């Protein structure tokens, strides 16, 4: 029983982390066609924000609750800055956004290397999260449940934003037909900027959650970015439910394979499986039906 429950729970928690990281990507890549390779570094920015706040207010217990919104704003502002300086020039050239943001990622990583100790910084788990839950005899760390709750909260907030607010309507209108939305009075420039703020902000939140689990050093972003992209691609563009399922499947299957072999090999197996899956469904799990030739 233990061998089933442990990977299921751990995998779900890892999948939840991937989901928050991928949500922001899904928003900017899926909705706007911008491939932001610096998204991983925004995760890192969130993790470091969590660390800095924990150092600043010496109470470790409350710091995470402060860190979450602050990290959202910090990463979000980074995203807005990136949009305003680099990405706005290349909305019609998606592959070029990929290249340019690789450059941005290199610079951000080096800034972190030059500012923070190179061996990485540790974030202390607050007391109230440092417990074990007993699930059918398996000692499950509470902070894993926390990442799942956090992912659910982010998802609900994002879905509500897209579905029920006037701004969400404007995003959807811009995605569907930019020119028409503009003629109807939607400021698409502003929509772009705010979409970027929200998408990048989510990376900041994911970063805080990751910092509770893994070591925070300059390679953190690189570790997550490729998996997050695979989740978005496997889930299908512009589809929140696809992203959710893909993140969960990737998280849980990695955890299961890790049981039989080492962590790194498990990752490779999952990569290969995703690539094979894309052979069967090149457009991902769920696709928007389109008559375009894309």
């Amino acid at each position, binding site marked *: 029983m233990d061998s089933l429950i442990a990977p299921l729970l751990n995998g779900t928690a890892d999948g939840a982390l991937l989901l928050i990281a991928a949500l922001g990507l899904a928003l900017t*890549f899926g909705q706007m066609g911008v*491939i932001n390779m610096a998204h991983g570094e925004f995760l890192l920015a969130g993790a470091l924000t969590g660390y800095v706040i924990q150092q600043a207010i010496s109470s470790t217990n409350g710091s995470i609750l402060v860190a979450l919104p602050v990290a959202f704003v910090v990463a979000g502002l980074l995203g807005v800055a990136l949009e305003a300086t*680099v990405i706005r*020039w*290349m909305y019609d*050239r*998606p*592959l*070029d956004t*990929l*290249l*340019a943001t*690789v*450059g*941005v*990622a*290199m*610079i951000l*990583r*080096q800034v972190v*290397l*030059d500012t923070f100790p190179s061996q990485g910084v540790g974030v202390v788990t607050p007391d109230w999260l440092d417990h074990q839950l007993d699930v059918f005899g398996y000692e499950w760390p509470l902070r894993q449940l926390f990442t799942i709750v956090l992912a659910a909260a982010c998802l609900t907030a994002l879905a509500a934003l897209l579905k029920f607010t006037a701004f969400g309507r404007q995003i959807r209108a811009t995605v569907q037909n930019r020119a028409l939305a503009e003629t109807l009075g939607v400021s698409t420039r502003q929509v772009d900027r705010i979409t970027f703020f929200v998408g990048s902000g989510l990376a900041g939140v994911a970063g805080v959650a990751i910092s509770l689990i893994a070591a925070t050093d300059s390679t953190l972003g*690189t570790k997550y970015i*490729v998996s997050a*992209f*695979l989740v978005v*691609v496997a889930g299908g563009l512009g589809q929140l439910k696809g992203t959710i399922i893909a993140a969960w499947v990737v998280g849980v299957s990695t955890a299961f394979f890790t049981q039989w072999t*080492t*962590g*790194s*090999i498990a*990752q*490779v197996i999952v*990569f*290969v499986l*995703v*690539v094979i899956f*894309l*052979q069967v469904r*090149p457009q991902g799990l769920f696709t928007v039906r389109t008559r375009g*030739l894309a």
Partner: protein
Amino acid sequence: MTTRLKSLLPLVGIAALAIALLVVAPAVLSDLRLNNLAKYCCWAMVAVGIGLVWGRGGMLVMGQGVFFALGAYAMGMHMQLESVGEGGIPTFMILYDPLAPLPAFWEPFRSGAFTIAMIVVAPVVVASVLGFAIFKRRVKGAYFAILTQALAVALATLISGTIKYTGGDTGLSGFTSFFGYTLDDPLNRRLIFTITASLLVGCLVVAWQLYRSRFGELLVATRDAEERVRFLGYDPANVKLVAFVVAAVMASIGGAMFVPIAGIMAPKSMDAAASIFFIAGVALGGRAALFGPVLGALAVGYGQSTLSERWPGAWIYLLGLLFIVVTIALPGGIASLGSRGAAALARVRPPHRKAESA
């Protein structure tokens, strides 16, 4: 200038580069610098292939490190076995497990001929299978870029994770001889440089021939209007596949020569970051031009080893900034500066009214 003469112009360029690399460089450079130049030549070979796939074919490959690694590890395994002698076992394996036998897939690499064959065959097989799957399913654009990068990450992780067979993160090193020539001898190292530079010139000649052939025209046509090529009765997937396979072989040969020159092969030289480093030279030099990728790769290689020795951080900032500026302002790379300048002049003073062309 007649068109016939003009079509031979690239050949003059290749000859000039060959003379610079094979005659001038060995005469004026010290052993150390020549060895460094040999390393840049290896990267330049990868770059010529990327120029073919990305510049002409429009497919951004972010995982060329995979093919670099195929050649490099084949060569590394052979040299490792050559260094330990007949029946010997590589040191890292003994350190890891003193009683371990040599893994079965290592055994054939004792043969030099087999190794050389694998350096070409392995990338052909891997690129064909991968390319067939990707291009037939019409995976392209960003999906293609991300998939190839994921594969580079996967392979690097795999090599790091299998210490017993591959040396893990430390990789393969401690080579003493190269097909019977000892590596200590400076003369032999000069020989290796000559081989590498000749191979680079060879890659350029192949690329030049491909570009002026019917295939080269089809490749550009596929990049610019894939549907139209399909409606004309060609299969774009096959065109892309050929470009991808040729580029993979170039990367593999570059990787194979990199090993005796650098004296080490580790996952770090082929992972996602290394694959992006390969792209950097191509992007800066100009991806669609014949010489852009080569000159860009040589420049980036030189810049990395000279600047990063003195100011490690500054080089990264500079490279990152160049990436951004070139993509925003100069997508054709430095090679396009000339034609852009001419176009700007033409705008100022239009020569004649030309017929509207598509």
